[in-house]
């Protein structure tokens, strides 16, 4: 499947019937560094020295210097789901662990795979395994999501 970088996929309508267990979501990717982190720090009011200052990050035992904030990757996981499922998607739950640091210059690839599908009442729910993989193939942010999708109405045969 292709890869996306922006919000261009949002708006497309994806229905429960279009999805199968095992489907890989089109990955969403981003090269990261201070230009992304500074913007995110500004909107999330997240001005910790380890995200801005190389010497502070080295003192905190990250020899490569300033590193990215986990919450930005949390947003990137949402970006993947929004890009895949469109505006009708209803993200019910999203969780992740911050397993590895986002270093300056990392090219992050956000991935997702459908692991389950179920109908609960009127809800058509899809379970998704998520991760943010760096350019070395390292898993940095394993996670999961539950997304409710619209269901395509089935056509009834006319009674003859």
């Amino acid at each position, binding site marked *: 499947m292709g890869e996306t*970088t*922006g*919000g*261009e996929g*949002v*708006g497309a309508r994806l229905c429960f019937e279009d999805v199968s267990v095992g489907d890989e979501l089109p990955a969403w990717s981003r090269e990261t560094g201070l*230009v*992304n982190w500074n*913007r*995110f720090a*500004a*909107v*999330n*009011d997240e001005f910790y020295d380890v995200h801005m200052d190389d010497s502070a990050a080295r003192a*905190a035992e990250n020899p490569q210097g300033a590193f990215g*904030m*986990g*919450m*930005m990757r*949390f*947003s*990137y996981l*949402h*970006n993947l789901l*929004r890009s895949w499922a469109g*505006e*009708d998607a209803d*993200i*019910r*739950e*999203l*969780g*992740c*662990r*911050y397993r590895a640091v986002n270093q300056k210059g990392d090219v992050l690839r956000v991935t997702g795979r459908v692991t389950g599908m179920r109908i609960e009442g009127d809800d058509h729910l899809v379970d998704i395994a998520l991760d943010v993989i760096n350019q070395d193939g390292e898993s940095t942010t394993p996670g999961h999501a539950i997304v409710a999708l619209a269901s395509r109405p089935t056509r009834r045969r006319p009674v003859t």
Partner: protein
Amino acid sequence: MSAEIRSLVTPELEARRGRWLRERLSEPVSASAIRRWAIACYWPDPPPRLYWDAEHAAGTRHGGIVAPLEFNAFTWPVEPDAADSGLETDALPGLRSMAGGTRDLYGVPMRPGDVIRERARIASWEQRETRLGPTLFIYSETEWTNQRGELVRTRFITSIRY
């Protein structure tokens, strides 16, 4: 015979377990803050129109602009709020911190004009021996409701102190 592991838990932390520690109201959510959040999250590409184009957003199932679900409605207070850095920070002096994980359960979306009520507590913790030495995993819960009393989200945060 195993050596006794030093507990990192302080009486101040014990006293906070399970109590709602922080209750506050946000400023009204603004369309401008939503737009800037979306731009930052998608930088350098443009964000989805749902977050900044009122005309487009009116034609979606949301009927208008909504905030990205993970949007932070509590930013830039005039008075710095010490609790922002973690409910446990001043109860664990001298320990370093690291983000362990985040899990959100979502209710209704945030819209321009919404005022969010927050309450937060430390639910529990556990201490483990890790490569960092004795390490505390602290599990906290933050609940957001809007001005109509509707649940916006519940966030579970794991913070690591070592």
